[in-house]
């Protein structure tokens, strides 16, 4: 594959510029598709083998992460993964309509999420359960969306965590606007500045909304970190369907820095996110981060990845597992002993059991909820529609009680 530099400085008379080469079947099988290795530009602090690489320019951003703090990040990831697996299982048992697994993306989400301050704002897409957790949102609060009892329920202001956005790319513009607001209100410019982070996928980078978000953020110097989790797939489409160029390099064309971080390295994700947020706080935003990671499970519980990708690819990525490398590192350096790992596992199992208990007992919302909050100001027409429907339901209740049945309204 020729480098971008060659494309931007073509040799006169050398004929048409080279384009990206197709990966060979061997590369695909080895998980080494054109962009899959991460390349030399990949920022990594902890290797898949659990080795701490020193002398990165980002070291200073994690100088405070001692063994105890690393244990906390490990615990976060284990808990998030355990909850994710439980939710996935509950979908299989019919308790959730669908689940969107984050398996494999724990480091990208926990690392970036833990880099945020309470005064910062995060705009998720729909897979950011790990980020939600770092924003202090009870995992149980995420279930309603997937069980179909609500569209979102947490306190967005309190947690600094916007509702999930399902329409690909929409939230990137919304986040940019929010960040412009932080700037307009003078909350940017020093160590105490505010910042916004927005999450989206590799597929999303093709949407106009994302391109426009980049333009707006650049023009208004908005303090927003564009956090792209490149998990290599947009449902069945590999990243090559979206871009010739490694995604982080897009930033350059818009006039702000872009960086590729090992998205399976929680320490690197924390460091790079802290750096990028810091830039934003000081008025040097925006920044694009491409977290190079892998979607280890299906796109959602309704997806069947065997139709479009080789299982060998997953096997390759299992060696880069985000949790395992931290465990190995902690064990090898004496940062944690077996008792710690056992405790975390036990806590994760309790966490999952609570989640399960809660889910099985979630009540269905009442029918009048359909009509609630459509507008901030009341709508007489809609109120009439609600009254008419509730009266109609009431009719069934009366019929049922006349017939001696205990079935209530809405359970027709």
């Amino acid at each position, binding site marked *: 594959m020729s480098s971008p530099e060659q494309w931007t400085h073509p040799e006169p008379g050398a004929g048409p510029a080279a384009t990206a080469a197709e990966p060979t079947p061997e590369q695909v099988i080895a998980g080494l598709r054109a962009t899959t290795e991460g390349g030399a530009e990949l920022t990594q602090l902890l290797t898949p083998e659990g080795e701490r690489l020193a002398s990165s320019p980002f070291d200073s951003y994690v100088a405070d992460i001692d063994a105890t703090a690393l244990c906390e990040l490990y615990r976060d990831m284990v808990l998030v993964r355990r909850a994710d697996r439980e939710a996935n299982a509950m979908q299989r048992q019919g308790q959730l309509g669908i689940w969107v697994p984050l398996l494999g993306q724990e480091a990208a989400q926990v690392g970036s999420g833990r880099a945020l301050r309470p005064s910062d704002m995060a705009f998720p897409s729909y897979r950011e359960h790990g980020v939600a957790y770092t924003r202090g949102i009870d995992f149980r609060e995420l279930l309603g969306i997937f069980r*179909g009892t609500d569209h979102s329920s947490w306190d967005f202001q309190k947690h600094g965590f916007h509702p999930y956005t399902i*329409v*690909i790319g929409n939230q990137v513009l919304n986040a940019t606007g929010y960040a412009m607001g932080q700037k307009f209100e003078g909350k940017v410019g020093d160590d105490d500045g505010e910042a916004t982070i927005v999450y989206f996928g590799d*597929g999303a980078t093709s949407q*106009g909304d994302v391109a426009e978000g980049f333009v707006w953020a650049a023009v208004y110097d908005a303090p927003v970190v564009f956090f792209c989790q490149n998990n290599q797939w947009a449902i069945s489409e590999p990243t090559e369907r979206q871009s010739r160029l490694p995604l982080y390099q897009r930033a350059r064309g818009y006039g702000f820095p872009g960086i590729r971080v090992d998205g399976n390295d929680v320490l690197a994700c924390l460091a790079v996110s802290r750096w990028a947020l810091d830039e934003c706080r000081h008025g040097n935003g925006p920044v694009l981060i491409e977290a190079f990671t892998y979607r280890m499970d299906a796109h959602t519980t309704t997806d069947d990845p065997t139709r479009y990708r080789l299982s060998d690819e997953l096997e390759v990525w299992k060696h880069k597992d985000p949790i395992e490398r931290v465990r190995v590192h902690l064990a090898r350096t004496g940062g944690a002993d077996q008792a710690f790992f056992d405790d975390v596992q036990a806590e994760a199992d309790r966490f999952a059991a609570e989640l399960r208990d809660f889910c099985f007992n979630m009540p269905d919302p009442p029918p009048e*909820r*359909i009509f609630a909050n*459509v507008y901030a100001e009341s709508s007489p027409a809609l109120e009439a529609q609600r009254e008419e429907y509730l009266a109609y339901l009431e009719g069934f209740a009366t019929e049922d009680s006349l017939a001696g049945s205990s079935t209530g309204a809405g359970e027709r």
Partner: protein
Amino acid sequence: MMAAPVKATTDGAPSSVQNLTIGKALNLGLRAAMEADDKVLILGEDVGKLGGVFRITDGLQKDFGEQRVLDTPLAESGIIGTAIGLAVRGFRPVCEIQFEGFIFPGFDQIVSQLAKLHYRTQGGVRAPVVIRVPFGGGIGAVEHHSESPESLFAHIAGLKVVSCANPVDAYWMIQQAIRSDDPVLFFEPKRLYHSGALKAPVDTTATPDPLFASRTVRRGSTATLVAYGPSVKVCLDAATAVEEDGTSLEVIDLRSLSPLDLEPVFESVRRTGRLIAVSEAQSESSITSEIAARVQQECFYSLESPVLRVTGFDTPYPPSKLEEHFLPDLDRVLHAVDRALAW
């Protein structure tokens, strides 16, 4: 359509007849269109190897190649905007929108370019683009996966909008839409795609009905129900449910939402005197509003009761645990019939 020679199979049925679901009929209809005209292309997200999230394009990329079945980048404006360019260049692109809720990034291209190209160029440029849109609810999905935005498109001059409700129509209408020289929004009832109960014999040598025509699918005399897409089945079930009580409901499948073919509806209402229009879409400024307006104008002296509507409420689509309330069901349709009769 030329009738192909028909071979008899072992069970005696001609081999040109297959028992199909709506999903499979669409798949075979697309295949037939691609075989008939090599300018027909399919563009969309995940339509290639995966065969689309509903498998409607299953096997097409394998058989026709990546030049004709394109897994596009993830951008609906891109899909529709480039389809317009391809059409100008002489292709007949068929765009798949993954779920109706994701058509809106492409709305600008549809409204500003697709709908107006022929008019602006005084007929000089045609844009024979088909946009396939799985629509409707009842699948227990998260937001943006269960909506019914068809009225927004029917409102736009220059677009044609159709919806199929059974496998025979699915097979033929998609081919007719692709052959049409006008842009066609093709709404597919997603919750019925793989319904075994709706499986029907599709004779691939038959002569299909015209595309932009409604059809009376059940004769009756007490009242008329008019619907399209997924609601046709609801109306047919309602008609069956009250048959024994001596209530005889006529059911009309609109099939074409723009242009509307309301002559059969007028004729029916003149006989029954009562009309109930059924749709999952919100009622405000919708196709059912249009029907009510036109029927009262054409059938004023025949009406025994006002035109009633059974629709989704004028709210966003609710969380799926509440969708059984939102969606018109048999009970709500029959309740409206009772109200019309009691008027």
